[in-house]
């Protein structure tokens, strides 16, 4: 009897211990109280345990804690903090609605600023710019521009004025993965870089990963720009927009089914060309884009989204030349909660990039593009408050049309031709684990396994010794090799295949509450190459999939950084240093003909690239006067030695600076809220001039002057600097009016510096003398925009 009671008692004792270890999950969705927009990256802090979590891209959070009562504090930039007491004695689903924070005029002293750096998260080399901050920055040409905003961050630059795309940590423009609601965008600029393709009004949040890229991203080696659109206000119908000198935009959003379904439609267009028409000038250049989204909450565990984007740029010169290009995307997503710890998102995406050119005076019409079909299934598994898993699968099928040439009429001398269409399939699996090892150390480690299949049907050239480029040892030049035959591949037959393991690792060590050291390593592979040997991608550039001749680009990046918050997050400083090297970076033989080339392999050579640098970002996050200073010291270079010791390589096989290398890059952004009517902003940029190749001599040939050159990119254009300012005027009586308006005035390049976009050397047609000509594109450019909402 006594033994039995002893056993029973022990059993009860033991089970009561396990009972007291019992854990429950608190989860839910956090949104804006007025619009029902879900909020990304909201901090949920459990005061007693000094732990917490944050909402994911769809506003969902989940945290598993031992049974007990806790003070839960929720905070997010731009919103008032919300605290509540949660008695966690079972699994609780709690959705929170946050109220927009009231702007006060006095210096804001907040105990825990959301803008301060998350010291503990191993996330590094990431810049998150809230859409509100972007909207306060000075606008150029009247439009809030996401790409221009990220250029004020360290490590981000663009090759020059009037050039599209952006460069991250010395990477090329084709090495950035640009995602809009999970769909890939191929060309991020309208009008050669003057405007980005993103309408800031429709954007909810964006994050730029420069390094420490999590395993769920792959396919591009330098960076990830992850942009999410708003769902649309599911409570009330609203319209907002802006009318500017060069372009205008309008957005309408509202409920389809109150609190359950919403829509958002926004459009933007430029119309400077209409002014040209008024002067009887028959040329035009304009762009337009359209963002649409439908969202529907089926029930507590299921959400559906359908989003679309359509953008076009059109140039036409008096009917003899017409050029149209742009992205279109359609995607369907389904959020499903398998449990309060397992969140999933399935996406089905169709994306299309089109480029078309008609030259009527030659009788020539050109169409090219890329279509891709993409399926993603991503899981976020909130196992415990110390461990979170992210895993999933991503598959893309590509259909490339490098070009279709057609005569425009019967009298055209052009023969029709279809360049070989190319097909490929890129599947990948990934797993990422974020773990809090101790009070001071958090790690994030993961692995992505990516594969690439280059598929038929296609007829592929076969070369002697598999060399598509010949080297003439006497003349020391590279030339195209002539194929010795072809090999036919059937539909979906594998022509080449690659697979790569991409480990990712990041660690954060918090020295104390205010400062930490972080380090990361990632390996990325990129199976697509943008075939271009110009500094700025022209729309004529073509994307080519990897094959036996164009091997995938493989990158290794190492980064280490020091992060510190001062005065409770009022000031922050981030210092990061990075090193990356890339294998299989394509380089081109001299005189490579890339347009309408059906055999790119005959003009490319494989080389390598590397970049390294130091980035400093110092920010003042609160108060009437706020802003940041970013400085980057870096080098970006590439080398293409010959394939054998005898070959000369490109630039004699020496390292040379890439066209987007910028030794010094300084950007100072500041914002000043004078009172509730006026606010001001300014951006000052200072950069080393672009690398260029200057002549070191000349000679005469056939009656014209020909410059001769030294090594590639060994000179620089003059230093680039400019100052932009803006002022926003919000009338005081706005609060009471139905239609609220504000005026935004801006001046780009305030002191009208003639920054050199290029310096070319040529013979003067009248005098025959040689001269250096500097081209500068923008002088002082004022802009006025009227923004309204109702």
């Amino acid at each position, binding site marked *: 009897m006594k033994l039995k009671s002893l056993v029973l008692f022990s059993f009860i004792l033991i089970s009561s211990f396990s009972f007291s270890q019992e854990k429950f999950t608190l989860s839910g969705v956090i949104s804006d109280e007025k619009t029902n927009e879900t909020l990304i990256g909201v901090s949920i802090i459990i005061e007693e345990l000094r732990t917490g979590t944050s909402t994911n891209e769809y506003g969902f959070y989940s945290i598993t804690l031992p049974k007990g009562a806790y003070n839960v504090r929720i905070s997010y930039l731009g919103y008032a903090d919300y605290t509540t007491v949660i008695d966690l004695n079972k699994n609780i689903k709690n959705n929170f609605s946050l109220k927009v924070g009231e702007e006060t005029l006095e210096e804001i002293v907040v105990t825990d600023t959301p803008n301060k750096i998350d010291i503990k998260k191993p996330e590094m080399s990431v810049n998150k710019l809230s859409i509100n901050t972007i909207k306060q920055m000075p606008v150029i040409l009247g439009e809030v521009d996401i790409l221009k905003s990220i250029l004020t961050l360290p490590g981000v630059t663009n*090759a020059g004025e009037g050039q599209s795309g952006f460069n991250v940590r010395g990477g090329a423009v084709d090495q950035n993965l640009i995602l809009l609601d999970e769909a890939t965008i191929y060309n991020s600029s309208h009008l*050669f870089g003057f405007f980005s393709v993103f309408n800031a009004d429709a954007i909810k949040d964006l994050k730029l990963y420069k390094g420490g890229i999590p395993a769920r991203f792959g396919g591009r080696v330098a960076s990830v720009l992850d942009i999410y659109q708003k769902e649309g206000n599911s409570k009330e119908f609203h319209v907002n927009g802006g009318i500017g000198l060069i372009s205008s935009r309008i957005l309408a959003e509202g409920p389809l089914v109150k609190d359950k379904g919403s829509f958002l439609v926004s459009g933007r267009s430029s119309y400077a060309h209409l002014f040209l028409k008024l002067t009887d000038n028959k040329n035009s250049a304009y762009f337009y884009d359209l963002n649409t989204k439908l969202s529907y909450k089926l029930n507590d565990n299921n959400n559906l989204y359908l989003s679309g984007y359509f953008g076009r740029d059109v*140039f036409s010169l008096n*009917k003899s030349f017409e050029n149209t290009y742009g992205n279109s995307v359609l995607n369907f997503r389904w959020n499903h909660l398998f449990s309060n710890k397992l969140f999933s998102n399935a996406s089905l995406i169709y994306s299309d990039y089109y480029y078309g050119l008609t030259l009527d005076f030659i009788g020539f019409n050109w169409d090219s593009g890329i279509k891709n079909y993409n399926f993603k299934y991503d899981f976020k598994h909130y196992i415990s408050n110390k461990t979170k898993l992210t895993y999933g699968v991503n598959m893309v099928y590509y259909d490339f049309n490098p070009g279709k040439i057609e005569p425009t009429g019967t009298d055209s001398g052009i*023969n029709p031709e279809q360049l070989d269409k190319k097909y490929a399939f890129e599947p990948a699996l990934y797993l990422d684990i974020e773990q809090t090892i101790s009070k001071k150390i958090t790690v994030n480690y993961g692995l992505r396994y990516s594969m690439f299949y280059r598929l038929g049907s296609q007829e592929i050239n076969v070369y002697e010794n598999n060399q598509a480029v010949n080297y003439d040892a006497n003349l020391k030049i590279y030339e195209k090799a002539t194929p010795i035959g072809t090999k036919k591949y059937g539909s979906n037959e594998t022509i080449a295949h690659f697979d790569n393991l991409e480990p990712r690792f990041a660690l954060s060590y918090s020295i104390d509450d205010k400062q930490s050291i972080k380090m990361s390593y990632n390996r990325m592979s990129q199976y697509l190459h943008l075939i271009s040997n110009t500094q700025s991608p022209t729309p004529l550039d073509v994307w080519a999939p990897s094959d036996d001749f164009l091997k995938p680009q493989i990158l290794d990046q190492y980064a280490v950084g020091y992060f510190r918050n001062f005065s409770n997050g009022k000031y922050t400083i981030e210092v990061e240093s990075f090193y990356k090297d890339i294998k299989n970076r394509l380089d081109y033989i001299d005189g490579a003909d890339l347009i309408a080339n059906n055999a790119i392999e005959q003009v490319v050579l494989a080389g390598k690239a590397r970049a390294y640098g130091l980035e400093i970002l110092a920010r003042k996050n609160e108060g009437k006067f706020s802003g940041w200073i970013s400085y980057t010291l870096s080098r970006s270079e590439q080398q293409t030695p010959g394939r054998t010791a005898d070959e000369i390589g490109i630039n004699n096989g020496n390292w040379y600076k890439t066209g987007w290398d910028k030794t010094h890059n300084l950007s100072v952004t500041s914002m000043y809220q004078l009172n509730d009517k006026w606010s001001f902003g300014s951006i000052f940029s200072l950069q080393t001039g672009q690398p260029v*190749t200057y002549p070191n001599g000349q000679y005469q040939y*056939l009656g014209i002057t020909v410059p001769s050159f030294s090594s590639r990119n060994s000179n620089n254009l003059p230093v680039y600097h400019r100052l932009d300012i803006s002022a926003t005027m919000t009338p005081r009586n706005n609060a009471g009016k139905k239609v609220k308006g504000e005026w935004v005035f801006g001046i780009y390049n305030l002191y009208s510096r003639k920054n050199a976009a290029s310096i070319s050397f040529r013979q003067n047609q009248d005098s025959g003398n040689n001269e250096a000509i500097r081209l500068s594109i923008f002088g002082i450019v004022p802009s006025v925009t009227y923004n309204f909402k109702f």
Partner: protein
Amino acid sequence: MVKFIYKITTFIIFLILILFSFVSCEDVVNVDLETSNPRLVIEASILWQKGTSGNEQKIKLTTTTDYYSNVIPVVSGATIFITDSSNTYTFYENPGTGEYFCGNFNPVINATYILTVIVNGETYTATETLKAVPSIDYAEQDVFNGFGGEEIEVKFFFQDNGAEENYYLAKFTSNFNLLPEYDYFDDEFTQGNQMFSLYINEDMKANDELNFTLYGVSERYYNYMSILLNIAGGNGGSPFSSPPATVRGNFVNQTNSDNFAFGYFNLSEIDTTTYIIQ
């Protein structure tokens, strides 16, 4: 043809960029440049005008010099000769000019020739084939709707030989231009068709004289000229141009392979015509 399309497109794109700014401009600026050691330049363009004997030919020898100089140094006292399968043709200098002449050259379509130039004890050689050219059929004037409004355009028509891959060089000289202008194209999209070479110039007006010369060239010379014209055209600085490169011709320095010569040895049959603008 494609190169032409690319160039026109690049030019137009660049013009459009300028459309968007209020104060975009081009200024002549002072840029200090270094000067490399002088290098030999051999301009050996052997041309056989249809309907002539092609016996009189000229080769020029000069060196590179500093970029801003107006004086091009000539090279005198060199030994120059061309050999084919049976003969040797010697070139004699007009003393002190750097120009070397030959009076008995024998041009044969598709024959291979070897040029030898001996300067300062170093021997340079080059090998090329003489390429044929179709005759120019006729010229047509029309109106081009360009960026600046209406401009005059002239097309010169000729029949491409559908049996082979052809490469062409075109030269335009006129009474309104100080310098010659060149263009290069192939028959990739126009194989076997009647092709045209297009010339547009906003300065052209009625009664101006436009001279057009069509050259048949080898693929290697076509590649050479495409790089050379891009560099010489001053496109070196445009963001849409390819990186400028030191363009190597087809000369091999048999004595010292690093000391290469600029220029090219090419042989082309040519046809010319002069058109008066209406």
